[in-house]
């Protein structure tokens, strides 16, 4: 094996030697290809594995934690929630529509491979600013791709998030989350058990798609990447819909021993992972693999990342029934091998062995690294924010308008109206509130879902930023009336071979772990995406948290919009001088610096307890967490999100010695705005007092204007924000479209 070939396959000399030692011989090219993908960062988690062990993964309701295709938690009534999140960043940069579409296809397969019917999707997106034509092209292409796939297959996309920042100019992020529901006693796993059992291939035919996709995802971008054309995969949601129905029917008929989707590294990863989990081997005959293109080599067939394919291990003697069901759904299917008990993945082409390696050598024996980690030299400077250089705004109306029209805060209707967010008729709370809520038919329950991360907080302080992402996700669920059950993460970082990036990663994982422990939320699945770096510039650390919560009674679901004139507006939690890392500082003062808002996990837990109790006692008409843009933006959002058109608010804030901008636009954590019937106000105050959570009455839902006054410490009151709801509504709802409509099109 030449050095060049080894390097081209993304392996180091030491890694190659390790393989030779494992096998006791040199590899052939096909085997080199197999190791190259399985030992890539993407498949092996070699830089992250050690640290991910810090995440808490246990709780009584956890049925399946990390390590399978998706995590599974018990939700009662004999049912389980199955969910996971995954990144498709690099493919979406190369071809936004197909990259995003196939990302959706992949995460859906991860869910239905576990025996669950997918019921919801979320998408977390990061792009450079929309004043660049290229970013507009990427953003609209990605949204269209997600819509194209999710809408066709009939799984509603019910939420997500979008942030815009220069740092994503050359490395946008596309993370997709999927939630499914399965019968608790019928969870399927990727296990190739039982020597002699037949191995079947079902789904789309294999072509030369995405060969080396997995290694590509583990590689930084350079100028040449945009021309890596042959690797682009095209999604076929129609085929996936048939595959989904066929798989669920196969599971219903109890014909399967194990099943796994063919994702990154296709046939290679699915077969060696299934064998390795079960401690068995698999023997494949490639000649039986359905193909789309002539004269493919074993190397290509094994590494192809053609979409919409599954690998099954059927019960012995039942393969005929499997083939029949596939035929009913017009899904291609073939027996391509059998389970053995020698621990080898043995691949034949027309009877001739073309690769033969221990399955575990490809999976468990992959190297792990504790790469050097160190804070970057610029970190201190980044965290310094001389507040005296930030003038207090004179015109707070203008600041509010600037924030409401900042694409990161602006209403995301342009995005989610392209998504079918109602199909399956479960969407009780639609996108546009803190969390979406889906009823579970046949029960009284509902699930709430959200995805969150503020990566500006994370670059300023990876530990606090990541912990805040967990806290915010949980807070969003609680605002919807749900008790957080578990989370999945998608950790997007730069190049792990750089000490500063490893430092960010390790701190972020610790932040997530500590927040999970404090809030008692286990991690049940996740994904790491490293090498989000172009021309030496890394993205901000972006550990996105997808979280699922349970409502025992669907009627309890709460949305963020005000409900009725006269309701009292309450603030739970406390406002401090938290301007570092805020959207206000970024959008108005063009500074990305400071320390992110302080997060006190005990206070956060208390706040969430109080709000949940209030919701469960039926005291809450609306709930909304204070996030980007602070109190003023949160009030505006509640006002503008009222179901039948805006409802105004009259609010007075006590100064408490704070700067005006901190009070209005600061992003202190652990704050939730409630609106309640005046008669229920006291009951909530009692609940809050019991748990030591500050609770203040800010004002009332009233009229058609948003009016926010500030009472200074001497008792004088001045009106700082006063705008008609209609004006704010038009600006907020129109901003994203306006940003997209400016300038020329094209994707050059």
């Amino acid at each position: 094996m030449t050095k060049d070939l080894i390097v081209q396959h993304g392996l180091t000399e030491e890694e190659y030697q390790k393989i030779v030692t494992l096998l006791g011989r040199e590899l052939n090219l096909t085997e080199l290809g197999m190791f190259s993908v399985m030992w890539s960062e993407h498949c092996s988690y070699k830089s992250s594995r050690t640290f991910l062990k810090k995440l808490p993964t246990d709780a009584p309701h956890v049925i399946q934690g990390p390590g399978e295709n998706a995590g599974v938690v018990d939700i009662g009534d004999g049912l389980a929630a199955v969910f996971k999140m995954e990144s498709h960043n690099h493919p979406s940069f190369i071809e936004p529509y197909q990259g995003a579409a196939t990302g959706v296809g992949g995460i859906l397969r991860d869910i239905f491979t576990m025996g669950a019917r997918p019921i919801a999707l979320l998408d977390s997106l990061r792009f450079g600013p929309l004043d660049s034509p290229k970013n507009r092209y990427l953003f609209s292409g990605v949204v269209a791709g997600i819509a194209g796939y999710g809408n066709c297959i009939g799984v509603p996309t019910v939420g997500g998030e979008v942030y815009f920042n220069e740092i994503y100019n050359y490395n946008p992020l596309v993370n997709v989350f999927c939630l499914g529901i399965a019968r608790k006693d019928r969870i399927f796993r990727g296990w190739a058990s039982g020597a002699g059992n037949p191995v079947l291939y079902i789904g789309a035919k294999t072509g030369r798609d995405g060969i080396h996709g997995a290694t590509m995802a583990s590689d930084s971008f350079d100028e040449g990447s945009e021309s890596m054309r042959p690797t682009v995969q095209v999604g076929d949601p129609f085929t996936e819909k048939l595959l989904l129905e066929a798989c669920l029917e196969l599971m219903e008929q109890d014909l399967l021993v194990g099943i796994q989707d063919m994702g990154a590294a296709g046939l290679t990863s699915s077969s060696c992972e299934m064998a390795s989990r079960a401690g068995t081997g698999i023997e494949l005959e490639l000649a039986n693999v359905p193909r789309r293109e002539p004269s493919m080599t074993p190397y290509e067939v094994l590494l192809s990342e053609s979409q919409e394919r599954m690998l099954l291990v059927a019960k012995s003697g039942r393969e005929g029934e499997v083939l029949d069901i596939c035929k009913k759904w017009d899904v291609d299917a073939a027996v391509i091998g059998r389970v053995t008990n020698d621990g080898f993945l043995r691949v034949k082409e027309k009877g001739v062995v073309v690769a033969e390696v221990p399955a575990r050598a490809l999976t468990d024996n992959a190297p792990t690294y504790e790469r050097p980690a160190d804070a970057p030299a610029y970190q201190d400077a980044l965290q310094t924010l001389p507040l005296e250089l930030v003038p207090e705004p004179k015109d707070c109306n203008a600041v509010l308008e600037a924030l409401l029209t900042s694409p990161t805060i602006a209403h995301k209707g342009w995005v989610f109206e392209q998504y079918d967010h109602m199909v399956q008729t479960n969407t009780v709370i639609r996108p546009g509130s803190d969390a979406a809520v889906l009823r579970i038919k046949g029960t009284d329950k509902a699930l709430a879902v959200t995805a969150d991360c503020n990566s500006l907080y994370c670059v300023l302080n990876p530990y606090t930023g990541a912990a805040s992402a967990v806290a915010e996700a949980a807070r969003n669920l609680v605002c919807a009336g749900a008790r957080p059950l578990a989370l999945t993460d998608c950790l997007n970082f730069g190049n792990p071979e750089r000490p500063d990036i490893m430092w960010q990663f390790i701190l972020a994982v610790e932040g997530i772990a500590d927040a999970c422990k404090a809030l008692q939320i286990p991690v049940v699945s996740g994904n790491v995406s490293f090498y989000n770096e172009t021309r030496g510039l890394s993205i901000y650390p972006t550990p996105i948290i997808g979280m699922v919560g349970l409502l025992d009674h669907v009627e309890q679901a709460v949305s963020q919009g005000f409900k009725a004139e006269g309701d009292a507006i309450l603030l739970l939690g406390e406002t401090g001088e938290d301007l570092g890392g805020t959207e206000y500082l970024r959008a108005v003062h063009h500074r990305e610096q400071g320390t992110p808002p302080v997060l006190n996990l005990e206070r956060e837990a208390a706040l969430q307890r109080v709000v949940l109790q209030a919701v469960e006692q039926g005291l809450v008409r609306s709930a909304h967490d204070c996030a980007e843009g602070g109190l003023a933006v949160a009030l505006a959002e509640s006002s503008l999100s009222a179901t039948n058109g805006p409802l105004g608010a009259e609010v007075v804030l006590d100064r408490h010695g704070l700067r005006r901008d901190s009070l209005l636009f600061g992003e202190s954590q652990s704050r939730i705005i409630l609106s309640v019937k005046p008669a229920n106000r006291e009951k909530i105050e009692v609940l809050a007092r019991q748990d030591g959570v500050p609770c203040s009455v800010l004002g009332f839902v009233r009229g058609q204007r948003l009016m926010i006054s500030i009472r200074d410490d001497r008792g004088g009151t001045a009106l700082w924000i006063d705008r008609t709801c209609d004006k704010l509504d038009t600006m907020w709802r129109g901003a994203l479209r306006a940003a997209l409509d400016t300038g020329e099109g094209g994707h050059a």
Partner: protein
Amino acid sequence: MSISLRVGILVFPGSNCDRDCQHAVSQVMGAKADFIWHKESMLPHVDAVIIPGGFSYGDYLRTGAIARFSPVMAAVTRFAEAGGLVLGICNGFQILLEAGLLPGAMLRNRSLSFLCKDVHLRVENADTPFTRRCKPGQVLTLPIAHGEGNYYADQATLAKLKARNQVIFRYCTKDGEVTPEANPNGSLDNIAGIVNDAGNILGLMPHPERCADALLGNEDGRLILLSLLEAIKSGRYAPKPVLAHNVS
């Protein structure tokens, strides 16, 4: 609702509102709902047929273009010719157009993007088996979710549709005004739903099954489903038995 009413819901490869329709008809409205597989060449005993939304055959080539050749569509055509009630929702409407059971054709939305949101509809004709529970001119709120709902027909066809009151729903403002701004997809004359000559086949783009259940915050879709079920009950739309030798 009497338990004897049976609604058949077609299932094509790529249908994705089939289960939603079944839930609305059976769990919400209390009638019986049976799935009918696209490969069936005979309908089982049903009192009405719903062609649900979705992306039959992936919407490849044109929406509804491939589905209309399914064996089941020949059976639906015979059922409709014998007077049976057929309701096509969204992709179901598109299939009915392609099959020639309703006049006109569907173009891509003017915006070129898929659009999912609530819209207002004015009931233009409350004297049909699908709208008898509505008041003439009543404004309903229903969700749409489609990429191709831009209805088109030539001038002669449009004139005929209007003359015979076959336009059943138009997109309108919340006060019932039919304006260009209220038109979400560019459809001709703000048309959202039409019936055939005989009045027993309705196609509409909005989704009544998505707003039949109070839990989802809006029950306007019930009016359409209830109308359909009551029309069946009235006995006026029982398909006439067709003798085998009469089928040409």
